[in-house]
């Protein structure tokens, strides 16, 4: 064993969770190796499109047929264009199989999807952590709000987030910089909603990991709203710009890009994982790295694939899989229900700059009184703007009057969609192909997930409530929609290696440790027990920081 390959800790993945594991472990003095399957993307230096004007991008930023052929799944994403496509995988090089349609959006690079995420950061509350137990769905979370609250605070203080605290118990108070300003229509909606719904339903500025003020030498936001290209001003949170640099300054970080982790090395005698097997993404050479503790932060499906691909006499169905739950209980949010509207008033008001966040209506269903049609709830993202030149594309008009009209700000428009919780279903799941492997000898992931009656009933109500609220706000042309959603599309895939109290029904304990192999921690979305409707990244970061600090304590006590 080469000593160069020996570390105190190995972190698999450098995204949202991996960056946090790296920061916490290195700051506590652990020599830490971060393995990233994709290429390196250096903060700012490698954001090659960040400051490009539309006309400096190929085809004024329009994707080509060749782009869509190489990235047939990725190119369906709203974010995908000439300025962002380099942050998404080539689907042909990274195949997976859909027993049911599933859109898997992936960023294989240093920083992972923390480069292109939507940056909304909300806390979960005990309404969320107790829901499974109260309603007899799946299994109970092994933690409560009090367990994670200090870690939410720890993460929020470091990442820097802006927004508005709702004052509602289902959306616990956060540490936030002042929110970005509402525009005239949003102010109008807010006051009408206050009139009609009291404090129960309200429009607030989303809590967002975008800085409205300078924070630790980063930001503030320059109003470009081109975050997914990478931010030259470090104004939004990414691993590249925030956690990995913090890990690097400790002198304890080794970052190894282009390193595909194939499986974990399990020592049955010690009942510990002693290291990982890595395939070089380019040369396909294999290397082994060793450490006392391993953090899996490879993103939900890839982390579980890694556990499933680590088989031994002790664990014939995947490492730590005594429960047979590994791969099961896959969840994503659903966002098919919402409304569009317009408003012809306030035509003398406009805005300047491009706000890099949305407005938000926090969950109000199944909070106080129990609904009879469905369990759980949803919050809305609300987007408003005045009409731009794009309104001219679909019209039959042309000529000088047409040009004069569409180069002036148009009517106000609104688009809102609910983000709803999906229940945990045992047979929504992923597994490994028994025969097909990818270019790095990893079995291909296959998956099957569908939304069920509870989600469909909720989506209908999401639409109806959106219409009711916008009518109450006196908007015009209020039109509800409730369109089918392909699972994966919200890019909140979670579950498949859930936490729990009982090793017979769960994979991880309350500190994200594999129940039966205590030096393996899993802290990305795969650990989730349910899918509370608020955006999950903040919770992944908080759980990762908590688990990393716990791992350090256990190491100190000689218990790993």
């Amino acid at each position, binding site marked *: 064993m080469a000593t160069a390959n020996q570390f105190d800790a190995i972190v698999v993945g450098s995204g949202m969770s991996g960056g946090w594991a790296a920061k916490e472990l290195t700051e506590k003095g652990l020599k830490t190796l971060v393995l990233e399957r994709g290429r390196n993307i250096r903060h700012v230096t490698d954001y090659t499109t960040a*400051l490009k*004007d*539309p*006309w400096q991008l*190929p*085809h*004024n*930023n*329009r*994707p*080509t*047929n*060749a782009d869509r052929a190489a990235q047939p799944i990725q190119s369906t994403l709203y974010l995908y264009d000439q300025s962002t496509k380099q942050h998404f995988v080539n689907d042909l090089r990274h195949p997976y199989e859909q027993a049911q349609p599933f859109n898997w959006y992936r960023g294989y690079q240093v920083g992972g999807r923390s480069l292109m995420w939507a940056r909304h950061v909300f806390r979960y509350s005990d309404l969320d952590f107790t829901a499974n137990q109260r309603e007899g769905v799946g299994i109970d979370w092994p933690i409560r709000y009090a367990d994670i609250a200090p870690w939410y605070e720890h993460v929020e203080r470091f990442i820097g987030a802006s927004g508005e605290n709702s004052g509602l118990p289902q959306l616990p108070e956060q540490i936030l910089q002042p929110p*970005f*300003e*509402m*525009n*005239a229509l*949003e*102010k109008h909606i807010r006051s009408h909603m206050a009139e009609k719904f009291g404090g129960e339903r309200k429009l607030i500025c989303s809590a967002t990991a975008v800085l409205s003020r300078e924070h630790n030498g980063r930001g*503030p*936001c*320059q*109003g*470009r709203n081109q975050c997914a290209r990478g931010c030259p001003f470090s104004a939004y949170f990414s691993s590249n710009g925030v956690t990995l640099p913090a890990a690097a300054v400790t002198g304890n970080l080794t970052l190894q890009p282009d390193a595909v982790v194939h499986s974990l090395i399990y020592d049955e005698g010690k009942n510990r994982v002693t290291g990982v097997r890595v395939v070089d993404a380019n040369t396909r050479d294999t290397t082994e790295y060793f450490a006392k503790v391993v953090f899996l932060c490879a993103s939900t499906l890839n982390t579980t694939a890694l556990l499933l691909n680590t088989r031994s006499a002790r664990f014939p169905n995947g490492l730590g899989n005594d429960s047979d739950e590994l791969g099961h209980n896959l969840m994503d949010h659903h966002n098919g229900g919402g409304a569009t509207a317009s408003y012809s008033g306030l*035509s*003398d*008001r*406009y*805005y*300047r*700059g*491009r*706000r*890099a966040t949305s407005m938000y209506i926090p969950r109000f269903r199944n909070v106080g009184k129990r609904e009879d049609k469905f369990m759980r709830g949803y919050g809305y993202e609300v987007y408003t703007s*005045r*009409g*731009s*030149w*794009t309104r*001219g*594309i*679909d*019209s*039959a008009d*042309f*000529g*000088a009057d*047409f*040009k*004069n009209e*569409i*180069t*002036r*700000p*148009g009517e106000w428009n609104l688009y809102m969609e609910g983000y709803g919780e999906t229940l945990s279903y045992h047979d929504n799941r992923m597994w490994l192909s028994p025969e097909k492997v990818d270019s790095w000898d990893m079995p291909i992931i296959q998956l099957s997930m569908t939304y069920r009656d509870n989600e469909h009933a909720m989506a209908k109500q999401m639409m109806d409530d959106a219409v009711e609220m916008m009518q109450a706000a006196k908007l015009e042309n209020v039109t509800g929609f409730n369109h089918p959603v392909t699972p994966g599309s919200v890019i909140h895939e979670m579950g498949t290696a859930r936490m729990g109290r009982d090793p017979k029904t769960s994979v991880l304990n309350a500190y994200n440790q594999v129940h039966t192999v205590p030096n393996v921690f899993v802290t990305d979305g795969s650990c989730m027990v349910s899918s509370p409707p608020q955006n999950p990244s903040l919770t992944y970061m908080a759980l990762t920081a908590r688990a990393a600090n716990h791992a350090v304590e256990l190491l100190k006590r000689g218990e790993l």
Partner: protein
Amino acid sequence: MSNRRSFLRGASILMGHAAFGQVMTAFAAAPRKATYFSDSEMVTLRALVDVILPATDSPAASAADTHYFIDLAIPACASAAAQKVFREALKYLGRKNFANLAPAKQVELLKARAAADMELPYDQSFFKILKDYTLTGYFLSEVGATQALAYERVPGGFQGDLPLKADQKAWAI
């Protein structure tokens, strides 16, 4: 617009450089060549984009080379069906001598085409494809974004609720 101004200041320093000036002169002198459409198709296309977006208080679409944008973007970005429909329509309008018709005639002909094409699915609708690529080509060009519309590469922040000025153009993005 301070950022745009400082961007232009940067450009003028470059322009002062003798070699750069020569390059720009040479570039301006060389006639631009289409890559996909024939010369006669380009003549028709140039006339079409200017009927859709003529010169007003901002330049016409052809002044922003919108027809050259379309020449590159149609083969790269449009579906095979749309490419075929688009080219056939250009040929047809070429045979009608569209580029040399009186302006009123051009408008009349395009209106008739619009009325028929608005009923068709996008890939079969010459008018819809033309509108899409003309507007994208022009309004996201430097001329379109900065003269016909308002554009700030780095706005410097966000101000949510401002009075609309009388001469305020819509933001390009």
